[in-house]
């Protein structure tokens, strides 16, 4: 217990980085995922194929490889840099990798949501003369989003837990890296481990309850 109290400030600072990564990831992956799903249902075969390839490639690659590649490949070898400060740079690289990875899952969730919208909705939209883009943004996606609030919540919870893999992307300030560092001096400490786990649960459980509640509130009555 003493170790936990002694190292609590460091661990809390590390955990704050996980929270920041999660916030950036939620915003970026939702935007990118929506763009991807629009591509995947568009009337343009090129965009459909591009979206499908992206989702299948990214979804089947381990996150560890995605993040390690962002750091060693994109940044070190190809010279992609967000900032000249190494720590800020690796934060954004990890945030980018995490968002690109999660976006594939967001896209899949939304596509499942589009499948729940009854056929008549799209037919009615077409019948009153809406174009593809109008029917997608005004009729289909709003209903699809409401249908997949709970699954999207699961995707977001998984992403929050995945922020710990930031270590693989060379971002050594998150809770997992701090925990590892602490273990190097104290040895495996059950209180520290449980402390971080409880911190994660304190974020993921409310997200789960909130999206569950939101899903029930927003459910489309049919």
């Amino acid at each position, binding site marked *: 217990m003493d170790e936990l109290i002694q190292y609590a400030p460091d661990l809390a600072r590390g955990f704050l980085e996980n929270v920041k990564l999660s916030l950036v990831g939620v915003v970026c992956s939702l935007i990118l995922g929506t763009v991807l799903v629009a591509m995947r249902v568009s009337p343009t075969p090129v965009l459909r194929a591009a979206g499908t390839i992206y989702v299948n490639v990214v*979804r*089947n690659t381990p996150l*560890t*490889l995605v993040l390690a590649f962002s750091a060693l490949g994109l940044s070190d070898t190809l010279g992609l840099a967000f900032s000249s400060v190494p720590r800020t740079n690796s934060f954004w690289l990890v945030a980018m990798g995490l968002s690109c990875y999660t976006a594939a*899952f967001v896209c899949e969730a939304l596509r*499942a949501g589009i499948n729940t*919208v*009854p056929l008549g909705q799209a037919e009615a939209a077409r019948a009153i003369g809406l174009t593809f883009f109008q029917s997608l943004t005004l009729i289909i996606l709003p209903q699809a989003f409401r249908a997949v609030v709970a699954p999207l919540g699961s995707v977001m919870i998984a992403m929050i837990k995945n922020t710990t893999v930031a270590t693989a992307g060379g971002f050594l300030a998150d809770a997992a890296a701090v925990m590892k560092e602490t273990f190097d001096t104290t*040895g495996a400490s059950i209180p520290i481990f449980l402390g971080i786990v409880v911190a*994660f649960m304190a974020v993921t459980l409310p997200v789960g309850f909130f999206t569950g509640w939101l899903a029930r509130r927003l459910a489309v009555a049919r």
Partner: protein
Amino acid sequence: MNTSVLFDVPGPRARIRNGILTVIGVILVAAVLYGIYAGFDAKNQWDGRIWEPFLRAETWKVYILEGLKGTLVAAAVAAVLAMVFGAVFGLARLSDHKWIRIPAGVVVEGFRAIPLLLLIFFIFYLAPTIFGGGDYAFIAVVSGLMLYNGSVLAEVVRAGVLAVPKGQSEAAYSIGMRKNQVMRLVLLPQGVTAMMPAIVSQLVVLLKDTALGYIIAYVDLLNTGFKILPAVFFGSLIPAAIVIGIIYISLNVALSTLANWLEKRSRRSRKTAAPPVVPPGAAVLGGPTPVVPGAEGVSTM
């Protein structure tokens, strides 16, 4: 809903619009591809020298296949253990006895909520203090994967058994079977067919997560292919990433295809009265009443 009904058979104006959209799409895709090409070119990534190692048999034998073996061994051992763990805890959660059901529920929900990497780190550091010095990378990866995926599979098992219609167990009880016989002879045989696709999908997650071993220096495909190989063949980092990426993707696509095929088969199977269990994390709604195990049960993906 079929996505093709989102747009009508295009008339003249829509055809022009779609044509323009196609042109824009082609330009965008081409721009992205050219951007990648030019970026690689600027850093000399098309140099034959850095791709050449992958044409040699010994590169594959010494590094890639060796790492692939590590990945597959860890995945296979963890998969077997996770299935055992899942079966035991999934059935324990269905127990009629509170003193079995509740602890099993706590274990399953707990391990599902812990980020897998933290679990692996913890085991990696805990093992030496209990069992003395040694290399515990393999044990840490396998037991972490077992505990996490086993907990997810426990939910799948539970959902599979619950998916069997109530009439089946009522009929079994009414012809005088015992609790254990009902489970063993009626519910599990039908439940397993319903669970199969979800189990195989979870195995994809497990296989992908073996790559976490890279972080604690377990000798897996990512480690030999992405850390050791580029160190030996200086500059081959990007080709190495592409090659091992392709290997991971093909393995997972093969497993996913198997899962889809199993799901189709179980959907039309007459051996079971239960609908297939929805894989955890898959966001399928509607359709013939899917059984979603747990509200926030999802893979680390």
